[in-house]
């Protein structure tokens, strides 16, 4: 008796999809579509734009399914494809480069309010948001991000660090406070 699609592992489904199995690939889209779309939104894409890019990413993944060896997770593999598509689109617009050059206003921290990650990401500059999302959301290394975004490695590291500092200030303000207290008292 053939196993149902729901019982099959991502690697098995990807192998069947590589042989042209559209139903099997559809199951992979059902499993990981939300994660890919969420990553794109966290990188700064509007909902409709994120959906368009996610669709393109999955179509690309279907064509290249034979390249997926199961070294990492299927979701991470598609996320990287999607992230690179988003970066390409942004590079065409060249908006995020211009925006990153602007000094953004310091975020107003409402410490009494519980902030979730999506809200906290909005306090980052576009380029910081992309770098942090690529690093911690798509699992890309700093050199990979630098290559994908055509930025110097040091710049990428700075963006990630500044982005994380801002997220920490929003999501774990007590840590920032204690760090300052130690700094002042020391």
């Amino acid at each position, binding site marked *: 008796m053939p196993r149902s699609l729901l019982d099959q592992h991502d690697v098995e489904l990807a192998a069947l999809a590589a042989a042209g199995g559209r139903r099997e690939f*559809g199951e992979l*889209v*059902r499993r990981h579509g939300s994660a890919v779309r969420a*990553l794109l939104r966290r990188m700064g894409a509007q909902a409709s734009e994120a959906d368009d890019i996610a669709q393109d990413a999955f*179509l690309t993944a279907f064509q290249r399914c034979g390249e997926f060896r199961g070294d990492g997770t299927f979701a991470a593999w598609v996320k990287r494809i999607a992230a690179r598509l988003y970066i390409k689109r942004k590079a065409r617009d060249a908006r995020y480069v211009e925006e990153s050059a602007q000094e953004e206003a310091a975020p107003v921290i409402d410490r009494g309010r519980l902030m*979730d990650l999506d809200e906290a990401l909005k306090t980052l500059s576009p380029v910081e948001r992309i770098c942090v999302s690529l690093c*911690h*959301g798509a699992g890309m290394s700093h050199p990979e991000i630098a290559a994908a975004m055509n930025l110097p490695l040091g710049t990428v590291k700075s963006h990630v660090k500044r982005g994380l500092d801002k997220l920490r200030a929003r*999501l*774990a303000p007590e840590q920032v406070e204690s760090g300052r207290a130690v700094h002042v008292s020391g």
Partner: protein
Amino acid sequence: MSADEFDVDIERMFAQTPRMADSELFASRVEARLASGSRLRAVALTAAGLIGGVFAVRESMNFDFSLSSGQAQTQTQTLGQGLEAAGGGANDVVRAVVDQIGLSDMGMGSMGGMQLFWVVAATLVFIAAAGVVKLSQEA
């Protein structure tokens, strides 16, 4: 919470993605695009084969030769090369059709040649149409 712990925490938060309400709709859209892409590719390949086939037959019509003459071997090779360019197997199809309808000894530039052209073209169209129907049923 140390900086390293916070990094881990951030990665955990990134990994937490609730299933979106329209995830089924999104998957259907991707599947629809996959299907339409496949159909487009099938139609494009069929059209390319058809055009190539017709082109090859037309090219072969430019040679005024008789299959029963002394030059038959060379001319058959020329015809075969032209048909090979259009895609495999067409040479055999043409030969079979020519033999079946008794035109193997007719000059290609004659009225019989024109008949042969239309017979071959109709056969290719039929094969292409059958291929499109089969592929669209599979899609």
